[in-house]
């Protein structure tokens, strides 16, 4: 089945765009904006607003309609790291029953990235948005190393405390530095020949499961993740029952 955007009717293919062209605001630049949009496969478009940002820059708001769609079978295989989330109590019970010991999780925001709030949201006692963090889970021993942590240091720490899982947080994605840093992390893990010892989990606003897998991690979590997502994933994996 072909899937297309829905404006006000099925398959009308309606999309809103905005962008800036390095041209002055004129009938000519409006035409340029239009052609630019049509070049991207849209069948019809309307420049609804054109505003001068500076003498030589114009911002456009555009509505465009496309006939291109995507085949739903193309996206059949997409899975998330933890499709069915257990809640706080369920996870703890699950660990008790199936792993039969507390699990150990080490986490940090690595590299030059100084944003702690994301990893804190997942790990700290108080959690985030009324979702407790891992530190609060009776069946989890959680170690949060904070931000600007060297990849090497994080790995060594994980080895030291015999971690089951390592969490890597990456917030800044300018110039793809999050991916670079994640790759570096994986290569260090491999150098140390400890890849099999840990579940490796990456998270951050510009990540998802697929991207993390591609970078060599076991799982990835994006915006709106909570501790229970991570806990569910780790618990199920350790119990050999992931779904």
């Amino acid at each position, binding site marked *: 089945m072909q899937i297309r955007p829905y404006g006000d009717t099925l398959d009308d293919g309606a999309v809103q765009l905005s962008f800036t062209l390095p041209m002055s605001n004129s009938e000519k630049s409006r035409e340029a904006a239009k052609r630019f949009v049509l070049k991207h496969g849209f069948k019809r478009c309307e420049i609804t*607003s054109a505003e001068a940002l500076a003498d030589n820059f114009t911002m456009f708001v555009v509505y465009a309609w496309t006939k291109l769609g995507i085949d739903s079978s193309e996206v059949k295989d997409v899975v998330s790291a933890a499709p069915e989330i257990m809640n706080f109590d369920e996870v703890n019970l699950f660990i008790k029953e199936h792993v039969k010991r507390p699990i150990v999780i080490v986490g940090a925001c690595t590299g030059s990235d100084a944003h702690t709030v994301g990893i804190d949201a997942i790990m700290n006692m108080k959690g985030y948005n009324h979702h407790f963090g891992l530190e609060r889970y009776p069946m989890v021993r959680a170690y949060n190393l904070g931000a600007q942590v060297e990849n090497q240091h994080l790995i060594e720490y994980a080895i030291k405390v015999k971690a089951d899982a390592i969490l890597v947080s990456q917030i800044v994605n300018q110039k793809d530095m999050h991916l670079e840093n994640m790759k570096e992390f994986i290569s260090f893990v491999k150098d140390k020949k400890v890849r099999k010892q840990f579940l490796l989990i990456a998270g951050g606003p510009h990540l998802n499961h697929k991207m993390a897998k591609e970078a060599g991690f076991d799982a990835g979590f994006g915006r709106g993740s909570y501790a229970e997502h991570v806990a569910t994933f780790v618990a199920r994996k350790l119990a050999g029952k992931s779904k």
Partner: protein
Amino acid sequence: MNKLNLSKQKTKQARKLAGAITRPVQAYIDTHTTISVERTVLRVLGANGMNKEGVPVPNLAVNCLEGKLAKGAARYWVNALLHYDGNLQKLNRAVAKGKDISALEMVSDVKLNKVVRPLLGTFNKQITANVKTRNMMLRRYRKKDDSPLLYLIVATGNIYEDVKQAEAAAHQGADIVAVIRTTAQSLLDYVPCGATIHGFGGTYATQENFRIMREALDKVAHKEKRYIRLVNYASGLCMPEIAAMGALERLDMMLNDSMYGVLFRDINMYRTFVDQHFSRMLTAFADITINTGEDNYLTTADAYQNAHTVLASQFINEGFAGNAGLAPRLMGLGHAFEIDPSLKNSVLYEIAQAQMVREIFPEAPIKYMPPTKFMTGDIFRGYVLNSMFNLVSGMTSQSIHLLGMLTEGILNPFMQDRYLAVKNAQYIMNATADLGREIQFAKHGIIAKRADEVLNKTLTFLERVNKLGLFKSISKGLFADVKRSPKGGKGYAGVLRKDSDYWNPVEDFLQKKLKLK
């Protein structure tokens, strides 16, 4: 609520003037009927269906009464019913097939009165049940706070698509869903029948479409635990008929204005005044809230300059509505956030006007329209205009809050536009929940002064209208800069002086129920 220190004396005077203005018009109304009123009467008395060409039975029946209509269509309909053994279905079928009900032998008035009673009884039961169901559901899913009801429109043209979008709207947080009518319907002198899937910029108002949407919204209400009010238009040449349909299908609100059709659709003024009265008796009986259309004035005239025409029209609408037995709590008087946003302190003026309307009509569920005229193709700008509208609405406790669409300047709303509109309103109304209670306005500040100024101008304006008379005032273009001649416009031919033996049992019934006589 008294933040503006508005003079009680002045508002009293304005109401007095509105009374004086509507009185002669009401006298005209009381002595006249229209083909649309007569069709409505037949609908209430069970007229239903259409012929092969799609002409509805009420129209067919009334059409054959040429020359006799001033005696009341009910007389002939009820008489005909006797000829069909009191079987409505048979009668409807016969009329649809071309039966001329004017040609039948007439029974006595006593007989007619007896036969009509059960018909009115059925109507009474239906409407009473509707009111009960509505109240029950409203109680069950009571809103926790007093913030404005969020009102969203759907306008696909296809009732089944409308249903999908209405469900989404309800999911998103709408309290009210309005099905916009197809563009030209207000000028049709009949109401189409059945479910429809082709409309232009809106969907036909038909009784079956009403039913379909009502059913869908009731279902979604249980799911969302929120009663979703349904709105349509008792407006145009079939104003009272649609009011009757709405009453029967438990609509909750009806766009209905005493002058909108005259000014914006060039419908004849006599026709409109007579029709609005009958419509309003019906909606009053069915406990339906009307929404008046003063907001429209501000789309053609400047909203700052003409704020007083809005207030004047509200007083007039209030006057007419009162005459028809509508309680203030059913008078959704309309106004709008349409002052040029580039004007310094525009939001202060909007606050002044909104607060003023709120204080002058404390019991009325005020209907507040979002910016439309100054919405451009810049959706970001539009989104922020809407946020100021949401702010003003919440802080002045408006009641019926039409959500502004960020694409208003461009196209009919996309599904995502409604979502964004709801989120905008919910955030702002929650984040400023108690702002209205929290603040006072400076005694002789910009806001208080502006409100006083508008009220003063309204008084002067109403005095002028009173002097000229309403008919002449409209023909001079006093409202919305639009001029209409008394006998011009559509539908004048359908207005009739009632004969001395005019019989309208539905009117009698409503007047009794509404304690108008």
